[in-house]
């Protein structure tokens, strides 16, 4: 009986471990961009929070641009 309990427990740990690991591994991997320093930044036109289109190339010759990509609104960081 004790052996059965141990093996069930072992199986449970194995299942839990398997379920937990992909998520953990995922957190560690970074979707690394192929863009390098010196590359031309791909142009884009996106809607602002005021529903106005903003194009990256509008700033060409005028301003430096910091692109701050964030995960989701209302989340930390």
């Amino acid at each position, binding site marked *: 009986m004790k052996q059965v309990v141990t093996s069930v427990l072992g199986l449970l740990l194995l299942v839990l471990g398997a379920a937990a690991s992909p998520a953990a591994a995922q957190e560690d991997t970074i*979707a690394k961009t192929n863009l390098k320093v010196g590359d031309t930044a791909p142009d884009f036109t996106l809607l602002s929070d005021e529903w*106005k289109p*903003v194009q990256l190339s509008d700033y060409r010759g005028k301003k430096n641009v910091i692109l701050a*990509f964030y995960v989701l*609104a*209302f989340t930390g960081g």
Partner: protein
Amino acid sequence: MAKIEASDTVVLGISIDSPAANAAFAKQIGVTFPLLSDMNKKTLIAYGILKPYDVKGEKYEWAERTTIVVDKEGKIQHVQQGGSAVDPNSAVSICTDLHEKHTK
């Protein structure tokens, strides 16, 4: 951030949120720069920073946290990703350097 906006640099926030969500978020955190909406994920794909996530067995994709500095010629000057990209200080110092380079 206010300091850097005052010079010749603009900040653009980008995520997959809708403009409506970004408007509410901007109000909540009090940002003065635009928050852009990449709802069709085209820009995130072009920049190679769309990341798959698994939430309770369902697959989702949203942005990897990334800071990229683009100079006035449209060239990338700085790329920072992951947890370290939360702190904008290095991006800000790059822009200050760029600013000084142009004004000298």
